[in-house]
């Protein structure tokens, strides 16, 4: 399954948007336009659906409704997130799920559901508040999505959302987890527990996935060979042979790997791990342009085998220089007074015209996301 459509109202940067999503979707836009907040809408739904999660936890992990609400919001302060689900490669909607969240304006400032709706195809099968909700308002502090007793008819949606994976590897966190104390974040978004994830993967599977990564790394980082997993007194490590100009090649561990190598390993691992929605934050970081330009095709090849949706943010023209990237797959975010607008690049006439004239998607789209007064930067500092 994939999320084929999303509606956001008053969610962070977005006052009111509605847009189609493809199997592979690229989100581009200026800094602080809401790319990560767009991805966070999917993570929010996942946080509701995962065991041990739920609506209240998902809200409090984000600092409360007031931190989630759009600053441009006026008359309608409730937040709405709605998604449509389709089979991979099909346009037909099989499920729709939509929630609206409000916060009490006084008293405990409790967050509760304004409504929760589920459609199977076109048929509305859940429409809260129901009579019982009206007589017992506490019930509206939880979604049916998070309750096994209540979501039986649409558990497919919960199971699907639960599998969503978000990854934004911060190499320093992976190299020096001990130096970054504090509670681990749900879902390990920044790769701090990446090595534990490796350790918890069955050996056979782990070896198959690492072998694939090793094959890719030998091409991208030719000095690095024989990437493998090592367990040293119960502590998981990644190890590889690093060839240098001296005849005796040395062993290297994760803390000696380059940032680009680690991010590449993380990316290739995440693509293979699981088959749910994969959310990637700037997969191009720390990588050479020649590698970046191959990522869209690489992602396409791996996701196709698993029928898996990948949604990623990017600032990279190199990533979008592949003419195999369709303008229908690129969503352009543009902030304005009324909140950030979202538009498929295919709907922007001048971008289409530039491609007709022989330009690549990256060269046509990315300059549209650059700040307009950059010449002032050097003048004023």
């Amino acid at each position, binding site marked *: 399954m994939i999320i084929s459509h999303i509606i956001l109202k008053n969610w962070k940067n977005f006052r009111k948007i509605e847009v189609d999503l493809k199997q592979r979707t690229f989100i581009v836009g200026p800094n602080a336009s809401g790319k990560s907040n767009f991805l966070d809408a999917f993570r929010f739904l996942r946080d509701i659906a995962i065991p041990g999660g739920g609506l209240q936890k998902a809200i409090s992990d984000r600092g409360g409704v007031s931190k989630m609400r759009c600053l441009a919001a006026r008359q309608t302060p409730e937040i709405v997130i709605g998604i449509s689900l389709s089979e991979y490669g099909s346009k037909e909607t099989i499920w729709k799920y939509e929630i609206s969240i409000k916060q009490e304006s006084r008293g405990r400032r409790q967050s509760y559901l304004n409504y929760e709706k589920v459609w199977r195809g076109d048929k509305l099968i859940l429409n809260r508040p129901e009579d019982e909700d009206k007589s017992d308002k506490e019930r509206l502090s939880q979604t049916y999505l998070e309750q096994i007793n209540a979501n039986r008819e649409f558990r497919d949606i919960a199971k699907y959302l639960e599998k969503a994976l978000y990854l934004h590897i911060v190499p320093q966190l992976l190299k020096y987890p001990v130096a970054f104390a504090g509670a681990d974040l749900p879902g390990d978004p920044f790769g701090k527990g990446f090595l534990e994830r490796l350790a918890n993967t069955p050996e056979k599977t782990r070896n198959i996935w690492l072998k694939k990564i090793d094959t890719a790394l030998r091409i991208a980082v030719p000095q690095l060979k024989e990437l493998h997993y090592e367990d040293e007194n119960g502590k998981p490590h990644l190890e590889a042979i690093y060839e240098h100009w001296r005849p005796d090649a040395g062993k290297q561990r994760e803390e000696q790997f380059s940032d680009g190598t680690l991010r590449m390993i993380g990316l290739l691992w995440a693509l293979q791990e699981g088959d749910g929605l994969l959310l990637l934050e700037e997969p191009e970081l720390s990588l050479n342009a020649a590698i970046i330009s191959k990522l869209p095709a690489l992602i396409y090849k791996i996701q196709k085998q698993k029928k898996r949706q990948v949604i990623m943010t990017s600032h990279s023209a190199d990533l979008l*220089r592949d*003419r*195999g990237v*369709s*303008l*229908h797959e690129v969503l352009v975010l543009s902030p304005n007074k009324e909140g950030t607008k979202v538009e498929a690049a*295919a709907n922007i006439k001048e971008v289409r015209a530039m491609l007709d004239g*022989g330009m690549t998607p990256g*060269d046509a789209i990315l300059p549209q996301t650059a700040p307009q007064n950059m010449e002032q930067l050097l003048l004023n500092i």
Partner: protein
Amino acid sequence: MMISLPIKLVYEDDLSEAVMKKLLNAFPKKYLISASYNKHGFTAIKRDLKGYNHAARFTPFFVLTDLDQNECPPSLIREWMIFDKQPQLIFRVAVREVESWVMADRYGFAKFAAVAIKHIPDKPDDIHDSKAALFEVIKKSKIKELKEDILPHYPGDRIGPNYNGSLCGFVIQSWNVQRAIQKSPSLKRAFDHLQNFQKQGKK
């Protein structure tokens, strides 16, 4: 022992790169590729050609571009090369696109696409739109994956999501230069040029 010539490649896309590498490999040990410049289209090649020509005073450069809708290779060269060409600059034009060169190995491409050889154009250099001709061949293929990879998915797309990956795979693994030069005169000229390049043992 023969010392390989270090050479740098300049090209429009991944498929051109794969073809150039295969061409150079046809002369074992003669060339050693030391850098690759993917220019993502002809505009940047045209813009930067003067720079590569300058640099060709010190090391050989092999530049490949598509003729596309220009009249003929000599007119394109006249228009682009508004300076004295360095002897170490190898500038070749694929007629009309590198896809024609790829299909020029008719036997190999028919096998790759799993179609009868009669469906592969017999005179690839005479095709007006090489990509469109290639799509026509792939549309006849019974291999679902090939269609998904190569044919455009959405309206307005020029190519499919793994167009380059899939066709590069063919070029690297199966494309036969000897068969291809018999069908494409522009490829044959490029091949001959690479064969004769610095043959007199000039250092």
